[in-house]
C-alpha cells in the first residue's frame, strides 16, 4: 500500500519535505534564508581567525601553500554533512508520529530528510569553498570531483540514518547517545589534522575509518592533490553495504513503529 505513490511522486514528496525542513529552520528569522550563506561564512571566519592568526597552524604536508583554514574547511564540509545528518537521525521518524500512524506515507523516506537538508546546506558551503579557493588562488579543475568524493559518506550516513531512525522510535536515549559519539568521531577522524600526522603505529587503524578516507579524498580533490582512489573505493563499498543493511533494518522494524509511537 505504501507503493501507492509512484517513484516520481515519492521524489517530489521527499523534495517537499526537505524544502520544508530547510525553510522551517529559518522561518521567522530576520535574515531568513540568507542564513544558509551567513552561517558557513561565520564558521569560515572563525576557523580562519583562530587557526590562521592565533594558532598560526601549519598543515605538515601543506605543499602548495594553501592556508590552513582552507584545508580545514574543505574537509569540514564533508564531516558536517555526516554529523548534521547523524545527530538528527534518531528523531527523524520519532518527531513525525502522524506520518506513521495517521497518514498513508512511505515512512522510509523520513530519515532521508535530515540528510537532504544537510546536503542543501553543504551545497552552499561548497559554493563558499569555491569562492574561497578562487580568492586564495588555489582553484583547480579537480574540484569538480568534490561531489563525487562525498558519495561514500552520503551512503554511510544514509545507512546509519535508517538504522538510528528506527532505533530512535523505540529507544528515546538514542538522541542523547548520538551527539557525543559524533563529537568523538570528529576527533578520531582526520578532520582537524591530516591522516599522515597520526603516529606510524596506529595509522593502519585509520585505514579502517571510511569517514577518514572520504574526508582525505575531499581535501585532495579541493586542493588539487592526488586522490587515494583505493581507500576511497573501500569506503564506497562500505557505504553501499551500510545503506543496504540500514534500509533492510528499517523496513524490518517499521511495522512496529505505529505501536511504539
Amino acid at each position: 500500500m505504501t507503493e501507492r505513490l509512484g517513484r516520481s511522486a515519492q521524489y517530489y514528496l521527499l523534495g517537499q519535505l526537505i524544502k520544508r525542513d530547510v525553510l522551517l529552520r529559518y522561518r521567522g528569522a530576520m535574515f531568513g534564508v540568507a542564513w544558509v550563506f551567513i552561517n558557513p561564512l561565520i564558521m569560515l571566519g572563525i576557523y580562519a581567525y583562530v587557526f590562521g592568526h592565533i594558532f598560526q597552524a601549519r598543515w605538515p604536508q601543506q605543499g602548495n601553500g594553501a592556508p590552513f583554514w582552507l584545508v580545514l574547511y574543505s574537509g569540514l564540509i564533508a564531516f558536517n554533512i555526516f554529523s548534521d545528518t547523524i545527530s538528527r537521525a534518531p528523531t527523524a521518524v520519532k518527531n513525525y508520529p502522524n506520518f506513521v500512524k495517521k497518514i498513508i506515507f512511505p515512512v522510509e523516506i523520513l530519515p532521508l530528510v535530515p540528510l537532504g537538508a544537510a546536503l542543501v546546506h553543504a551545497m552552499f558551503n561548497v559554493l563558499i569553498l569555491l569562492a574561497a579557493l578562487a580568492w586564495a588562488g588555489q582553484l583547480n579543475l579537480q574540484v569538480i570531483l568534490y561531489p563525487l568524493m562525498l558519495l561514500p559518506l552520503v551512503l554511510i550516513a544514509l545507512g546509519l540514518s535508517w538504522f538510528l531512525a528506527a532505533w530512535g522510535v523505540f529507544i528515546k536515549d538514542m538522541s542523547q547517545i548520538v551527539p557525543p559519539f559524533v563529537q568523538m568521531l570528529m576527533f578520531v577522524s582526520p578532520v582537524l589534522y591530516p591522516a599522515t600526522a597520526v603516529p606510524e603505529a596506529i595509522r593502519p587503524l585509520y585505514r579502517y575509518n571510511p569517514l577518514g578516507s572520504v574526508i582525505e579524498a575531499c581535501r585532495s580533490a579541493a586542493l588539487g592533490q592526488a586522490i587515494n582512489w583505493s581507500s576511497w573505493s573501500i569506503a564506497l563499498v562500505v557505504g553501499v553495504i551500510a545503506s543496504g543493511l540500514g534500509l533492510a533494518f528499517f523496513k524490518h522494524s517499521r511495522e512496529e513503529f505505529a505501536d511504539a509511537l
Partner: protein
Amino acid sequence: MPSDDVAISVRDLTKTYRLFSHAGDRIKQFFTFGVKQYHRQFTALKDISFDIKKGETIGILGRNGSGKSTLLQLICGILKPTMGAVTTCGRISALLELGAGFNPEFTGRENVYFQGALMGFTQADMDDRFDDIAAFADIGEFIDQPVRTYSSGMFVRLAFAAMIHADADILVIDEALSVGDEAFQRKCFDKLQVYLEGNEKILLFVSHNVRQVERICSRAIWLEDGRVVQQGAASETCAAYQAKIHQQVHGRQESQKLLPTFADSGEIDVIGLQLFKDQGEEPVDEIEIHAALRIAVDFRCDSNLIEPDIIVGFHTIDSVFIAAASTAILPKQPDFPPGQHRVEVRIADLTLLPGVYQLRLGFLDRHFRPMWAGHKLSTFRITAPLGSNLVRLPPGLVDMPFEWRFTSLGT
C-alpha cells in the same frame, strides 16, 4: 475471489501487538531472536471479515479500545495484519485524521500543497484545485497565515476542504466532524452527500455519535473487544448498539444510585427516582414513544421545606438537556413538613424519539439556593412500537406534533 463491485474485502483479519513493559525489553527481545519472550501479546482485532461494495457508506461503532482505529489503519495499509488479509481497490484518502499532515509553522496554502503531495498530486494538479479548496474552507486572508494562528474551527475547515478535494475513492473520516460550528458541519455533510453520489465512492465513518452514523451511513459495523458484534443496516445496528450502551450505563448506575452530583446541602435525602408506565405499579426502564409516563421522586427532609422548586428533567447521555418540569410554574408551590414524601410528575404523551436518555433532579429553596441537584440519575430507553413508521423519522430528539398540508398553487 471478491466480485467486481467489492472495493474493500477484509478476510479473517487478526492483529496482535507486542506489548513491552519497558523500553529495554524491546532490545533484549531483538537480541534473543525469539528464543525468549520479553513481551505480552495483545489482540486488538480477531477474525474480522466483511466486504464493502462501491457506493456504500459504512459506519464503524464501538467504544474506545474496541479496535476501530486499528481496523482503519489496517484497511489503509498503515499497519500490516498479523493474520488474514485486506484487499482494497481504488485510491484511499491518505489521512486518517483531518489535518494530520499539517505543520503549524507553515501557512494554510503551503500545507494544502503539501497535503496534495501526500496524496500524490503534483504542483500543477494542486494549482488547479487550490481555488476550490480555498473557496470551500472560506477562511479568507488566513489562508496565507501560519496554521498555528488558526482557531480549531478554521483548522478543520481547511483540512476538510483539502481532503474532500483530493478525489479519493475511499474516504476515511475518524471522529473529525465533531469540531467546527453547526453551519460548517452541515456544509460538510452536504458536501459529503454530493461527493458520495454516483455510487462509486466509499465512506468509512467512525464516530461515537450514533446519530451521525445513522444519518449518513447505509451500513454499520459494531466492534467490541476486537470482534464484530453485529453488522448490517445502519439503523438496526445503531439501535442494537444503543441498547447495549443503555444496559451498560444502567448497570453501572445501580451502585451509585441517587447520589447528588451537583449540589447537596444535606437538608434533603433522595430515596428513590422511578419511572412508571401510565397506571403501572412496577418501575420500568423502557418505555414506548408516545406512551404516558409517571416519574416518582421519594425524598425525606428533616426540617420544613417552604415552597421549594422541584425540577425533573431529561437529558441525553452526552448531557444535552432536552426538557424539564418545574414546580415553579405552579400558582401555589407546596410546603413539605419534616418526614418522607413522594412527588409525582406525569407526562401524558412522551414525545422523546427512540434512544437512551437520563433523568436529572433538583431541589431549590425559595431563594433559588440549590439544596440537592444531580444529573445522570436514572437511565431509560425509549423504544419505537414494532412495525411503526416512527423509525423512518429523521434523527433528532423530539417527535413534535407536526401537521402537513399540501395545496396546489396552480401550474
